[in-house]
């Protein structure tokens, strides 16, 4: 498997995968190949199966059909080289842990049950905190942070775990633009260093500008390619169905209602289309 002089290794491969929860099918016939060093955005409307796709790769959900390979093994086989960051809503922010404790948790799987965190673990934790710019707030309880700072802390945990594969569920959702840029820069650095980053996002503009590759999901993969192609208006129409407003040219607006069940919910429009 060589392409010229550089070996191409796939960190994630899915072949004809179906998956769901209970009786409900969430993803159907998904085939995907993510080479090492990729920076991939997974986009799609709510309930499209973005998080399900991440959970399959993380080994948190078993496929009903098809094959999932992560770093050449079954999901979970190389779990210590995988860092999964859940959506912010999944975390109990009142939990009695500090910023540095959360980052240190990234080291726990590497240590095993008997060993206590040592000086090397402390050094890795410090370095990760430094990189995300959270060194000064290291002793804060995590609930005392802003939304963007919380995302930085979880990213630092992923870095401290020295994972090869980063699986991030909505890492840049609902945070300030400066933090969003910082986080995307850090993720681009990780990808440039040969790590593989797969992140879900609602933000099509961000997907178009900051990621090399975009995978659009709506129960199955409806588009997959460089962001300019995958975010083409016609492709988006397939991903988002009726929730799409066409503007002139190839620019579109996606009517992305975050709160489907709430009546009169505020609707969020994200501008997408070709990157500037």
């Amino acid at each position, binding site marked *: 498997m060589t392409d010229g002089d550089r070996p191409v290794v796939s960190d994630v491969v899915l072949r004809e995968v179906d998956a769901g929860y*209970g009786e409900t099918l969430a993803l159907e016939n998904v085939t995907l190949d993510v080479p090492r060093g990729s920076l991939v955005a997974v986009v799609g409307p709510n309930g499209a199966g973005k998080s399900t796709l991440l959970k399959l790769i993380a080994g948190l959900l078993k496929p009903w059909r098809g094959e999932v390979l992560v770093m050449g093994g079954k999901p979970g086989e190389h779990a210590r080289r995988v860092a999964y960051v859940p959506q912010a809503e999944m975390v109990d*922010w009142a939990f*009695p842990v500090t910023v540095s404790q959360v980052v240190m*948790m990234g080291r*726990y*799987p590497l240590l095993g049950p008997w060993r206590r965190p040592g000086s090397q673990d402390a050094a890795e934790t410090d370095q990760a905190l430094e990189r995300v710019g959270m060194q000064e707030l290291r002793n804060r309880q995590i609930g005392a942070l802003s*939304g963007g700072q919380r995302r930085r802390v979880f990213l630092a945990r992923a870095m401290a775990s020295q994972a090869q594969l980063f699986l991030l569920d909505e890492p840049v959702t609902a945070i300030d633009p400066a933090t969003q840029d910082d986080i995307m820069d850090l993720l681009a650095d990780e990808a440039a260093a040969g790590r593989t980053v797969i992140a879900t996002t609602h933000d099509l503009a961000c997907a178009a500008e900051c990621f090399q590759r975009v995978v659009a999901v709506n129960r199955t993969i409806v588009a997959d390619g460089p962001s300019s192609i995958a975010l083409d208006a016609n492709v988006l129409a397939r991903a988002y169905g009726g929730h799409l407003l066409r503007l002139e040219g190839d620019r579109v607006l996606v009517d992305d209602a975050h709160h489907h069940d709430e009546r009169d919910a505020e609707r969020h429009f994200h501008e997408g289309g070709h990157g500037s």
Partner: protein
Amino acid sequence: MIDLILGPLGYDIFVRSLLAVVMVGVACAVIGTYVVLKGLAFIGDAISHAAFPGVVIAYLLGGSYLIGAGIAAVSTALATRYITRRGHLRSDTSIGVLFAGMFALGIFLFSTIRGYVGDLFGFLVGNVLAISPTDLVALVILASGTLVVVAILWKELLYATFDPLGAAASGLKVELLEYLFLGLVALTIVISLQAVGIILVVAMLVTPPAAAQMLTVRFGRLIGLAVAISVASSVIGLYLSFWLDVASGATIVLTQTAAFLVALFLGPRRGMLARRADTHHVQVPE
């Protein structure tokens, strides 16, 4: 005054009881901290009630109550999780079904016994002063075993409690830890039965960590404070019950409740008010 404190120590039975409540206090506070953080208080209450038929069967067969209660409690703890997964039920529903069913079985068997059942009644409301030397040895061994397991797995349990998905994805056996933890909860409850009784044992698990939560937002300090509050209330409660000649289990639990109320109202900086602010109010530091 000194006589009030040293006097009771002249009785073997008081010394045994003191050792028992200290061990129970430490084990309950450590396990209870995780119970509170995992939101499993209801499971704690359920497991203790489910132990009752085990106690009654052990009594009927003339065996050790620890074994009977242990089997009933551990199997119920594991069964709730199994039934939740198998039946696609909410966990509080399956717990409600199992715990009431098991407790009813205990009452049913209890009512078949004719004659003196004072010993059994002691398990409902607790009677630590009735603890035998053999029971104390078993209690110390089991409590130490529980603490050793937590000492080995504290950080895995912490990670799995805080972020089960992240922990599982990075290779921790979260499912296995969950079953193991429920087993530890069951064991801790069983060793606490004689001290405080089935009905009140949940307070031993939940109240000291809840009080500690009013005082700190650091995990290490939380466990430490929970242990300190738990042991202090257990010792004070036992003395009070001795001096006043009242029920020991209830007095211990009331002492813990008093400690919780003090922490709730006198610990406003780090206590309830500060935690509220942390969760709902986002402070953006400079």
